């Protein structure tokens, strides 16, 4: 079973979703929870059988798909993808368990299970086309979730989300085809296997162009400034569950892809574009934080805060050293947990009042103390309080980038200031002061079902903030191998000096069977 655990992880939810069509709609939620629970158990099994000390790919699977064109169904996980997969199954469970939608629950559950398949698929795929398949396919369930259960502007939002990301990823697809073509020219064989691509050393100009093509796809997905405007709409209109999954997992696809594709494949281009991207990241951090501060809708605050945090993740990624990249991967998980929790929290209040405008609230701390406490915890995690999960990632990302540029890190470090400003302002508006709105006077505090989702998240937030080692270590090992690979592959002097040389002679590119030629 362990040999095929990744395939099982991917297709079990899909199969379950198919069976789900038969389930009676009143039992759909129980069914969904059971399936998601099994999936989470499987993903934990994956973790426990994962060898933390190995840096390469594990649980590799390979099946020919279109061998004539070098497309194979290749799966594998390393420390980078492992935890995002677990996060995905975890959030699907949490999401289904805390689902409050009453309309068409069955369709929602089935859609979520399909979405889970695509999410796990993206992070487990080691073939560019298989990756692309899941990457694109993930848009469809999300489109449906936003479009069918969303707010008044849901159709605009969902189409914008879909088309924007779709456009970007098509450009990325062209990039992938070029990459495969270059591989073909170099070796005489078509291959879309990522591990094969890792071994290809491209001239700098090619790297720059390909980096650009991939960048378009990833940047829109992340989303990076100025491609971010679909996100506030998507979040603003999506139902709670949609926002949670979107923020926690789907956005991570972009940043993950940077680490999986851009860095190891185009080390010189990564160095070349490091500063422009860092500047974009800084704009994301500061500018979006200011935009978040101006928002009147609490969900938009959280949505824009996501963009701001993604800026830090990007910055850490492009630190191009172990500290920064490890930090950015950790921050992906951290941001997934924290922003997911924040969206759940917004959903809690939305369920009660059916509004997300902050001006409608005020003084909630006295009405809903438990809610205020959990919100406060997540708020503190979001602003990067040490001993919460976010701090580890943020600290390492910034620390990593400091090696590359002092002044830019100083600017990016403003994240901790501007982040505090909008978060505290929002918290003050919602929770502090006297209860002015009569409708808020008798709001019930968080109930058991909501706590069921929020408490595990709170525990993770603290636990991984205090003791990040179980996650940090496997990530670190995989990142070290990637950094070493980048160093070895880079051709320009600039890149050689920017990317640290760790230990001589780590052999990391496990050759797939295609690779023998």
């Amino acid at each position, binding site marked *: 079973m362990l040999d095929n655990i990744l395939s099982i992880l991917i297709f079990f939810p899909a199969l379950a979703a198919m069976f789900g069509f038969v389930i009676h709609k009143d039992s759909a939620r129980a069914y969904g929870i059971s399936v998601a629970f099994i999936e989470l158990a499987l993903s934990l099994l994956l973790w426990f059988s994962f060898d933390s000390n190995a840096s390469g790919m594990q649980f590799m699977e390979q099946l020919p798909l279109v061998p004539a064109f070098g497309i194979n169904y290749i799966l594998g996980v390393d420390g980078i993808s492992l935890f995002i997969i677990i996060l995905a199954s975890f959030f699907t469970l949490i999401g289904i368990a805390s689902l409050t939608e009453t309309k068409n629950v069955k369709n929602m559950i089935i859609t979520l299970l399909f979405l889970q398949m695509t999410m796990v698929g993206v992070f487990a795929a080691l073939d560019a086309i298989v990756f692309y398949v899941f990457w694109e396919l993930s848009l469809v369930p999300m489109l449906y979730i936003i479009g069918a259960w969303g707010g008044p502007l849901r159709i605009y939002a969902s189409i914008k989300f879909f088309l924007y990301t779709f456009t970007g990823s098509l450009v990325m697809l062209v990039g992938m085809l070029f990459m495969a073509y270059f591989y073909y020219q170099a070796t005489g064989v078509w291959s879309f296997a990522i591990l094969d691509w890792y071994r290809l050393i491209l001239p700098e100009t090619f790297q720059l162009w390909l980096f650009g093509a991939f960048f378009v796809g990833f940047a829109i997905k992340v989303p990076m400034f100025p491609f971010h405007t679909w996100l506030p709409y998507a979040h603003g209109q999506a139902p709670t569950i949609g926002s949670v999954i979107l923020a926690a997992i789907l956005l991570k696809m972009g940043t993950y892809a940077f680490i999986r594709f851009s860095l190891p494949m185009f080390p010189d281009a990564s160095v070349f574009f490091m500063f422009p991207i860092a500047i974009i990241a800084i704009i994301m951090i500061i500018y979006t934080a200011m935009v978040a501060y101006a928002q009147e809708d609490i969900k938009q605050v959280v949505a824009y805060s996501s963009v701001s945090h993604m800026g830090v993740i990007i910055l850490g990624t492009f630190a191009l050293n172990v500290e920064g990249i490890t930090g950015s991967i950790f921050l992906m998980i951290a941001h997934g947990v924290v922003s997911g929790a924040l969206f759940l929290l917004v959903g809690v209040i939305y369920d009660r009042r059916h509004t997300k405008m902050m001006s409608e609230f005020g003084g909630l701390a006295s009405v809903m103390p438990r809610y205020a406490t959990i919100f406060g915890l997540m708020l503190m995690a979001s602003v990067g309080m040490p001993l919460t999960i976010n701090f580890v990632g943020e600290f390492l990302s910034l620390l990593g980038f400091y090696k590359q540029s002092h002044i830019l890190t100083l600017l990016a*470090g403003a994240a901790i200031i501007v982040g505090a400003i909008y978060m505290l302002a929002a918290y003050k508006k919602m929770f502090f002061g006297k209860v002015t709105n009569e409708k808020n006077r008798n709001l019930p505090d968080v109930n058991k079902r909501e706590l069921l989702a929020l408490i595990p998240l709170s525990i993770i937030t603290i636990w991984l903030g205090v003791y990040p080692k179980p996650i940090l270590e496997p990530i670190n090992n995989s990142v070290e191998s990637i950094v070493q690979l980048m160093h070895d592959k880079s051709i320009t002097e600039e890149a050689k000096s920017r990317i640290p040389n760790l230990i001589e002679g780590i052999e990391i590119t496990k050759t797939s069977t295609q690779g023998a030629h």
Partner: protein
Amino acid sequence: MELYLYLALFSPLAGSLFAALFGASPKTIVAGVVPSVLLFVSFVSSTILLLHILSGGDAVHVEMMTWMATGNLYIPFGFVVDQVSVTMMMVVTIVSTIVHVYSIGYMDHDKGFNRFFSYLSAFVFSMMVLVMSDNFAGLFIGWEGVGLCSWLLIGFWYEKESATWAANEAFIMNRIADLGMLIGIFLVYWNTGTLQYDKAFAEMQHLDTAILAWMGIFLFIGAMGKSAQFPLHTWLADAMEGPTPVSALIHAATMVTAGVYLVVRANPLYDLIPHVGLFIASLGAFVALFAASMALVNRDMKRIIAYSTLSQLGYMFVAAGLGAYWVALFHLMAHAFFKALLFLGAGNVMHAMHNELDPFKMGGLRKVMKGTFIMMTLASVALAGIYPLAGFWSKDLILEVAMIEHHYIIYSVLLFTAGLTAFYSFRLVALVFHGEERYKLFGVHPHEAYKFMLIAMSPLLILAIIAGAFKMTYFEMVTQVLPATEYHIHSALTYWIMTIGTQLFVILAIAYAYKKYQVAKEDPAMEKRLCYKILINQYYIPYFYEEYLVKPYRELSTIFWKQVDMKIVDATVDGIAKTIYATGEKTREMQSGNLSTMLKWMVAGTVGLLSLAVVFGLAARYSDEIKVFLSGLGV
């Protein structure tokens, strides 16, 4: 010894968590007593550790577990109890135990009683982490932790707009400084490869001065925020919105001194960069005077004490900046005792006066509040630096340091400030405890605080009086890790002139304060003066921040959202989509449905192709001629 270390460190956390269990339930006295007891445990453990150190034991160093490890970075949860940190631990645990016990009475009628103790103990835990950590990252944990607790406690009465505003202000302003601190930490890491104090400081001896200067500056920026140095000082006065025990513990005795502690802790670094030290000293002297001046006219009891704290922090930075780290630490300790006492006394007064803060509305309280009166007066005497109380020993030492290091400007500023300090302290005492009983006009019936509160305060009183006696023991202890410069004026005559002169100057100031405010009367003439206006408006700095930083930030944010994000970035994206769509709408007319038109399109297409073909064909056939022609044209 490790057990005691862990006990000292984690009992406050246990207390906090215990109180948190009752967070949502109505007031229960257990939630106050248990944390206090646990803090006492912490205090006892700290004392045992102190005795261990005093008896010449080695510093206790433990590494609990790994926190972060990636690449070359390795950060453990490591704690060290050495001469410096044990001093701080003693200060923290003594003051906080007292404040806890005091708070049981002070917060008696507050519905957030349980919550309060949870926060307060959490604060103590953070503070302990801050002082006990053996590396910069651990320091930063505590650093941020105390910031968080400060936010929670300033905004404790969250229904008050001013309280929540002040809480956010404090947090954000500290965050600005924390960025500096973070950058300082990054600098340390990338230049020394470690964040452990001992290794990093050892490594720093080989580094370039310029880099060290940057490290020192950035770390000091962090210290400026926590210790509320100019220009990041405004939050401290506003933080007085919090409950008074909080002000005593956090905003007088412990948290605000974290900045001083940082500089003392990083003494090997600052020793290497004396020019940065001089800057720190100058800023400290400036703040000492600057804050004292604002205290002169203020009409809010707690703010007056807060400015006094600020001013004393300036003193500490002068000492630390001039390399007299042990002096700074000594003043820190002495100041913690008398200032906490002063605040707690002020708390009693507030309680008695039903949260009235304007001393002009009090007066004559010494009759009803004898205990408080004595304590506050003595605390003020100590603050003013009258022999033989604690303030004399520590503050006078700082003046001497300035003198000996030949920084006469700093010396004169500090001397002058000492006079101001005495003046405003006794202005307050006079207004509150002497003169007419003005409060009667407001129908208030003041009463003395609970007895156990006064008893709780008494250790502070004792310490405020006798702390000077520990000077030599203390000196011998801390100079094992801090530079052991003894500051003695070489000529005994000068020494006596200076000491007696200072004392006289201070006593004169006290006398003047008594004389002027024995009978409190509004002084409209003075209030019209420009300098009064400047002082009462705190040099217009809060106004400046509000007008030129906060408002523009808010407006810029709105512009970014409504104009840039919506109207430029998003509109561009939508614009592309709309253009494509509009093109479709316009050109669909081509499909008129009329067969004749359709045929015409076909013919037109053919003719178009044909003409292109002809042009191309001609060009190909006559390419030679064309070349000749073109060359004739000079192309």
